[in-house]
């Protein structure tokens, strides 16, 4: 028997470490420590109801577990064989789900890149090996030529999961064909998209999958050096990668003459220091060389002249994580999943105003509706769906009418967004789309490296315009100005960051034009979220003078005697909304 405790970032933040400790103590107390193993795994994906504890082999799925629940799980479930009902997952229908395989959240998912996340102890190489780990590397080294490996990856149809969607096999082939005394394989783990944690979860939950795939890529392209460029802000992923690399070296799966072949391969870590633009491959390479992470014009592509001017293959974490499975199960198996133009699956970080926030992996071609309303369980608090944002700062906001779009690279581009690395943020009726566009622009302005003027200056100007709009100070012609700037910046920026920076603005203007107009012409925010356009007032007829609002007001803007009608001083009011929440008599209103 096994007790799997989620050790992903979200659950650890809610003390899953101490849950594992308490479970071990309880097992010891009941003399069961030899029969039951407690394993701290990678992310289960169901972050909304974390921390998660799963019991194997019966697949009981306990949610929102606290360290003090350990005694019940052991004494009731393990000793007496009775599930602890209060910890079971309750479906929105109110029904208790006893087996995780029956949860709507998991039913539509196919897990390839996340195959081991939530199943194995990421700090133990034996568990990875037990699930066919390093089998693909063995096959490749013993039975295949580099060209055959490349052909299999090409045949599988695997496309880059970092956002661009470039065919991985083709990329490998370019690096393979460029002759050089030294080549490099790089893993882009500089996940900087705000609201995305796919790569992090793979590295934390299944680090060996990435190491194995990089070695396979090294063999295919003719490189003996691997580098993982990872954000220094991901301490847990770094720790687990370090452990994994050490273990792989010990087992002879990295190093000299792997599997008694002539192939040598080793992997080092390089730390990113927090710059979103470093997700762009040329910028990433400059950063690895100790420079400012500024992108350069392509060509030359990294496959021609990359790290230290040598041919370099750069793929992202999720792309690599698919590779061992493609080799083991065959490219035909892989290409049957998904759509014709986009094979396999995609991992998404589903977040925002959705009931089931978490990490999911679905076949390409799944519709947005299935993801949001079936897997995601619909909108939080019974509110109305308004938009879903994909592709992070490079993507756009899609609406109700796009919900039946099958998700793949080309379909999302066609409707004005993009796949991106896999952030998917759901918004409801309370979210102002102009503010959302402004939010992303603020991010781009902050992260623009400053090298080219359209991105450095243009995005700043756009942000200022959006600021004016949300403050109700813009004129009608500002909207046209904004649109023009979008096109100029998209057409003239040097790298992907600048070229796609206007997407959040363009897509919200396209889909929510009325909202922009309302801000400009009526100085009104339809979602009721732009503070400058709001005015809190007290309705005298409803006010009983209970003083609750005055006591809550953080700036003392509300005055009035007890049992007298109160008043809000608009000059002092910071529009925090505390009075609205405090009033039990519906006497506070927003105008």
């Amino acid at each position: 028997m096994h007790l799997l405790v989620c050790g992903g970032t979200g659950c650890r933040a809610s003390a899953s470490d101490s849950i594992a400790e308490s479970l071990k103590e309880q097992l010891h107390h009941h003399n069961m420590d030899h029969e039951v193993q407690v394993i701290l795994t990678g992310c289960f994906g169901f972050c909304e109801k974390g921390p998660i504890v799963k019991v194997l082999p019966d697949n009981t799925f306990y949610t929102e577990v606290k360290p003090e629940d350990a005694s019940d799980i052991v004494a009731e479930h393990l000793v007496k064989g009775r599930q602890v009902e209060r910890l079971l997952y309750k479906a929105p229908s109110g029904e208790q789900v006893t087996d995780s395989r029956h949860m709507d959240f998991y039913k539509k998912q196919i897990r390839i890149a996340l195959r081991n996340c939530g199943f194995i102890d990421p700090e133990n190489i034996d568990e990875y090996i037990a699930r066919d780990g390093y089998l693909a590397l063995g096959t490749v080294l013993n039975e295949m030529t580099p060209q055959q490996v490349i052909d299999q990856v090409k045949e599988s149809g695997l496309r880059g999961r970092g956002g661009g969607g470039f065919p991985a096999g083709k990329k490998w082939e370019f690096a393979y064909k460029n002759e050089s005394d030294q080549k490099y394989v790089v893993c882009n783990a500089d996940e900087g998209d705000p609201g995305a944690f796919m790569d992090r979860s793979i590295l934390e939950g299944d680090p060996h999958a990435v190491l194995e795939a990089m070695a396979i890529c090294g063999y295919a392209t003719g490189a003996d050096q691997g580098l993982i460029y990872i954000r220094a802000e991901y301490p847990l992923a770094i720790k687990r990668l370090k452990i994994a690399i050490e273990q792989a070296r010990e087992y002879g799966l990295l190093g000299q003459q792997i599997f008694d072949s002539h192939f040598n391969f080793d992997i080092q870590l390089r730390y990113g220091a927090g710059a979103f633009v470093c997700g762009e491959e040329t910028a990433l390479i400059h950063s690895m060389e100790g420079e400012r992470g500024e992108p350069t014009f392509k060509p030359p592509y990294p496959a021609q002249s990359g790290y230290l001017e040598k041919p370099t293959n750069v793929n992202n974490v999720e792309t690599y994580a698919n590779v061992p499975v493609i080799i083991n199960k065959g490219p035909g198996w892989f290409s049957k999943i998904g759509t014709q133009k986009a094979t396999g699956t995609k991992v998404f970080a589903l977040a925002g105003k959705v009931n089931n926030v978490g990490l999911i992996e679905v076949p390409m071609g799944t519709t947005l509706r299935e993801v949001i309303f079936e897997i995601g369980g619909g909108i939080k608090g019974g509110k109305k769906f308004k938009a879903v944002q994909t592709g992070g700062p490079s993507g756009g906001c899609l609406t109700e009418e796009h919900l039946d779009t099958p998700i793949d690279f080309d379909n999302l581009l066609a409707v004005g967004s993009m796949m991106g690395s896999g952030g998917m943020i759901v918004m409801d009726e309370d979210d102002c789309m102009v503010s959302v566009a402004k939010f992303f622009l603020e991010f781009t302005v902050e992260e623009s490296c400053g090298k080219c003027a359209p991105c450095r200056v243009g995005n700043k100007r756009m942000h200022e315009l959006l600021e004016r709009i949300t403050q109700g100070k813009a004129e009608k012609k500002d909207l046209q100005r904004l649109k023009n700037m979008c096109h100029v910046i998209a057409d003239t920026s040097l790298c992907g960051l600048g070229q796609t920076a206007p997407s959040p603005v363009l897509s919200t203007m396209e889909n929510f034009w009325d909202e922009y107009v309302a801000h400009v012409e009526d100085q009104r925010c339809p979602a009721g979220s732009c503070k400058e356009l709001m005015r809190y007032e007290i309705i005298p007829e409803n006010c009983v003078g209970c003083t609750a609002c005055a006591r809550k007001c953080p700036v003392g803007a509300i005055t009035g005697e007890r049992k007298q009608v109160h008043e809000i001083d608009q000059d002092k009011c910071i529009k925090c909304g505390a009075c609205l929440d405090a009033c039990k008599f519906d006497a506070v209103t927003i105008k």
Partner: protein
Amino acid sequence: MSSIKVKIKQQDLNKIREICQAHGNEPGELINVLQQTQEHFGYLPAEIQEAVANELGLPVAKVYGVVTFYSFFTMIPQGRYPISICTGTACYVRGADNVLQEFKRQLGIAVGETSEDGKFSLNCLRCVGACGLAPVVLVGDKTYGRVSPDGVKDIIAEYQDKE
């Protein structure tokens, strides 16, 4: 950028030399050197950047260029209890901005600043990967989930009386 004048001691210079040597005095190791240096000193004032530049044989401008490029590096000392508000998209749509405004108001400092008593510093970061707990606030390594503006007072109070 605001700068702080510090007098650099001989033992500090030795430490910088030691870090640079551990990286083979390789200019290509600049980012790793700066990371370790910041880990040791807590921040990277101009004088320390100069010392690093000397050791690695680089122009000071280049070191400054790298320090100011990456958000991980800071030229002002952080508070004993650094507060970071996650402003990733998931936290944003669940109200991170209101939480941030409340921290600013209660601490009386802006983002990127440190309180006068050196106790708190305030920063934003993008996505810690705990979107299920949004909005998220970090104080040091400790994570606070589902923070509301009302809860800000309690978080600050938890550290206010600590040394």
